[in-house]
């Protein structure tokens, strides 16, 4: 069994700065290519959306029983994706798992950006998007209000809150690093970072404020993250439709969210590690830990799946049972079984150490997990619609080009935001890595010296300061 360190504690702080700031230097060709591919994808989506806006939703091939389609499933997918950052930065933060430090920054960025992506879909799928603001409870002269009983209006609140909170969290967490950028940049960049770093000079008082705020935000964000996906799940669970009206949906959704989040983290972890040569920081050890975490979550998700199936199977609702059977045997069966395979079988690859340490394998695996998560969302939305209570209206929907284009474009949009982020902001948290290095080094020194002093009988172990 290989034992290696989360991070090389001999690494110099200056080098950390250097390495991270290097990742923000002028991009290479490969970057621009990906960048423009993303722009092209977004362009497709925009064209499709304009066409849909002018012609009507019919162009998506949605139909009477199948009123919702890929828009909603993609929406749920992105919302789920957004739980990764919170998990790494907030949950692991308060349980003092310091190995998160090198990798939580981009995870958090992912959170924000996937929310920014998810936010579009409820609007895109509206029949009359130009009236979307009627969902917002503002004082209207007409004296009419949104329907507070509707999970969709809860969504509006939940998502906007979560988005603003996580953005704030990301920003606050970056302040010290932004200050570093400020000090190393010149010209316009200096102005920008100067503005963003809110005059951070790293005084004691600032650090005190900073730590408090950060912890506070973390504690605030965790219940928020949980509630958001619970509310999204209630879009389905609050209905009476067979296959949607499931009590275990909230935890199921949250687990699924964390799952997809972790999978996405692994993907990006590997990419960043490869492109920005972050081997020093995104070490195999951390990779292993992430994989283990993912594996655990995968098992939780599998368990909740089984619970749901069992509950339906032994439940009293014949319709739900029929939907379940149709999931496994009906027109969507291949999606269902792919989801089960990729979601519950493939993760066992994470349990094998030699595979865990093999980046290409992990890359493929993580993509498979993501795929399974997307299919999961589709399997939540589609089968119930295509086979609910009224047999006369059993019908399936084949998504049109428009629908595909917009879903496709959303990935481009996410990529775009992320690409911009990694070039404008430090995608590895410098100050936290420094902390990590500091603590580890101190630990080791402690061990060494206590050993020495035990021999010499010196009862006053001194502490050597880091260079």
């Amino acid at each position, binding site marked *: 069994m290989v034992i290696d360190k989360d991070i090389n504690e001999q690494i110099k702080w200056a080098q950390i700065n250097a390495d991270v700031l290097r990742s923000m230097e002028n991009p290479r060709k490969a970057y621009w290519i990906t960048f423009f591919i993303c722009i092209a994808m977004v362009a497709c989506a925009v064209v499709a959306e304009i066409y849909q806006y002018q012609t009507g939703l019919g162009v998506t091939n949605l139909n009477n029983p199948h009123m919702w389609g890929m828009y909603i499933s993609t929406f749920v997918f992105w919302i789920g994706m957004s739980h990764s950052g919170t998990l790494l930065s907030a949950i692991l933060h308060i349980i003092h798992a310091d190995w998160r430090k090198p990798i939580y920054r981009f995870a958090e960025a992912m959170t924000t950006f996937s929310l920014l992506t998810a936010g579009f879909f409820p609007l895109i799928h509206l029949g009359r998007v130009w009236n979307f603001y009627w969902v917002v409870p503002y004082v209207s002269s007409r004296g009419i209000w949104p329907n507070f009983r509707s999970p969709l209006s809860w969504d509006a609140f939940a998502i906007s809150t979560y988005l603003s909170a996580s953005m704030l969290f990301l920003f606050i967490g970056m302040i010290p690093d932004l200050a570093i950028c400020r000090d190393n940049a010149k010209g316009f960049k200096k102005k920008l970072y100067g503005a963003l770093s809110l005059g951070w000079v790293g005084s004691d008082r600032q650090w005190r404020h900073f730590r408090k705020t950060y912890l506070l935000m973390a504690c605030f964000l965790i219940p928020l993250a949980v509630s958001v996906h619970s509310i999204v799940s209630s879009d389905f669970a609050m209905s009476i439709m067979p296959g949607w009206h499931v009590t275990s949906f909230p935890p199921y959704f949250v687990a699924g969210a964390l799952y997809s989040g972790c999978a996405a983290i692994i993907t990006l972890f590997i990419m960043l590690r490869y492109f920005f040569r972050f081997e020093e920081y995104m070490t195999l050890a951390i990779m292993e830990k992430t994989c283990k975490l993912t594996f655990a979550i995968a098992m939780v998700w599998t368990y909740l799946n089984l619970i749901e199936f069992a509950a339906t199977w032994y439940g009293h609702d014949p319709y739900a049972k029929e939907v379940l059977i149709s999931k496994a045997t009906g027109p969507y069966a291949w999606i269902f079984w792919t989801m089960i395979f990729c979601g519950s079988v493939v993760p066992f690859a994470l349990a094998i150490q030699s595979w865990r340490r093999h980046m290409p394998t992990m890359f493929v695996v993580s993509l498979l997990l993501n795929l399974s998560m997307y299919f999961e969302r589709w399997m939540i939305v589609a089968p119930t619609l295509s086979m609910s209570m009224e047999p*006369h209206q059993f019908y399936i929907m084949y998504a049109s080009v428009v629908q595909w284009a917009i879903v496709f474009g959303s990935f481009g949009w996410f990529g775009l935001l992320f690409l911009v982020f990694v070039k404008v902001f430090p995608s590895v948290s410098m100050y936290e890595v420094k902390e990590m290095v500091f603590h580890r080094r101190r630990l080791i020194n402690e061990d060494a010296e206590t050993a020495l002093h035990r021999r010499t009988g010196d009862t006053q172990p001194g502490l050597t300061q880091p260079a």
Partner: protein
Amino acid sequence: MIGKMKRRDFLKALGLGGTATLAGCDLPTTVTLEEGKEDVVSYLLPDEYVIPGIAVWYASTCTQCAAGCGIHGRVREGRVLKIEGNPEAPINAGKTCQMGQAGLQGHYNPDRITTPMVREGGKLVPTTWEKAQALLSEKVGAKASLNADRVAWFTGTLSGHQRALVSNHLDAIGSKQHFAHEVVNASVWQAVSRDMLDDPMPRIRLDKAKLILSFGADFLGTWVSPVHFAGQYAKFRTAADRGALIQVESKMSMTGGSADLWVAIRPGTEGALALGLANYLVANGVSAAALSAEVRDKIAAHDLQKVAATTGIATAQIERIGKALKSRNPSVVLAGASVEGQAQGYDAVAAIMLLNVLLGNIGTTIEPSGKFPFPQLEAKTGGTRDLLAFAQAVQQKQLDVVFVYGANPVYSAPAALKLDEQLNNVPFKVVLAQFPDETAMHADLVLPVSSYLEDWGTHVAAYQAEQSQIAVQQPLMQKLYGDTRGFGDVMVTLLAMRNAAQWGAFADNYAYMKNVFANMKTSVGQAALSADEFWNNSLQTGMVKVDAPVRKHTVKPVVPNVAASSTDAAYPFYLVPSPRMGLYDGRHANLPWLQESPDQIAKVVWDSWAEMHPSTAEKLGIAHGDVIKVESEHGALEVKAYLVKAIHPDAISIPLGQGHTEYGRYAKGRGVNPLKILKPITDTKTGELAMYATRVKVSKTGKQETIIRLGHSDTQHGRRLARTVSVDVLKRTKGA
């Protein structure tokens, strides 16, 4: 009052009372709220009976089929918006079928002919009425030199004063040539009842019957007077002891859908089954004394085994039906188009009528009808014999001038008759049409006629209910297109050309009608009223009640020579060109509502399809939705296969109505027309076209298409949405 209404220009009122509803929900582009953007035009003179924003109902008569139902039209700001049944009308008692509802779309149809058209240099070009009239008077005017017998009228079922006008015109010319053509008809049934009961259209009392045995008579959908029978059917079902319906046919009709027992029979063997049942009844102690020895022999000759072999129905099943017939009195036995449309159609229907005689239904559930006092107004019911006769006359160049109205022979004639080409043998063809249909496109002169909601007329349905009546048709709104003319108006002008002395007096049909009514009132026992009172009453009630002396039924049984069905190795299947309530015989194919309303049994919309039994399909390796080639001796059709169990394995059923090559945006080039591949066999006795006697063979084309239909599941997955209970349970419970 209506007179005034007709002349007052209504559409002026548009823009009042929020009629411009087209602006939908608040897409900024569709609503104009800025002041001074919309025009509002007031009336020139107020009409005391027209209040903007308030609807008025006027009575009239439906002409969507020949049943002659009374209707009420809802008129607002000069537009007729909705059609509903006239509760006073004895035929339909306030009800309508979907075709009646859709009449509006015939009237407002975007594809109507709006100006006269004349053929110049081989193609039709718009012209004016003046030119058209000049042409007419040159061809058929007083001075025109024409051979009287070479002038003909070709119409659909025609009755009331329209018929009177046509006969007058023919008399004025001196011709006897009036062909009346109707694809969906009951001519053979009428012939048989005429011969056996001396009553062409006996009144049928479903409401009195305890059992209906219908041999392919789609009396709820397309047979004789559907809405009337539907009303009776309701009484028949809700009666204290509920009547039972047995439907014997080779393809399930709409009526078959409501049957308690639906029996699939080999096409063309209904007569044999009827005799077989007679045989059973006689064997079980029903007296056949009333029948001649000859007839009795016929019956004796049809023992159940033989019949079972012919019809492909198990003996047990036949006995079941027989038992029901014997035990449930009174019953009524009906014969529909699929029985009539055979080479031995007459005999088959006769055999079926014999059952009524045997069971003593004559006089109980089959009542003598009233003898209509005005023969000149009686319906000239169309059939297919006249079509054949016409085709022959045309082929032998016996006609110089043909007037066509209310019929579309070029569409409905089998390709074998080659009518479309032969029509060129007629030098001058005048078509009075509302739509540019196939026949109109073959005309030398097309005269645009008003829709029935813009026109005057009277109708005398061939099938009269308890109270005989003349149904009155009046305009419910001003003409949509100023350049169209009412059929009556055209006739009056035509007649004036021949006989100015008598007909010159009438400005138009309106004047003629008023005059007619003024003379009529005494003969219908309304002498007390003034002419105007009588006129207004008739318009308000939409009918003139006529008491018709009831006929007497004298039963003269006919000897039915029912032939054993033959088999044909080359063409193994029977083609069933089934008419459907909705598109009917194809005349309603351009009404979008009816195109989009699904077929009652197959639930297919906007298209044609070929129904076949799964077992047959399996043999031929055909799957649901395969495009198949249905081929007869006289042509082939490519159409999607629709697998359904409600059909006999030997039958291939293609519904009527689609396959128009002209006619309008909704109908043109859609689906196929089974009439085209019919073999021109005729019924030996009546000479009617044997529409159901054509044999076909079926082959795959290899193409696969999706069948566009309403609903995506044929079973309820055990979720008892539409629940069924057996009648014995019903008997134990009170209530409807």
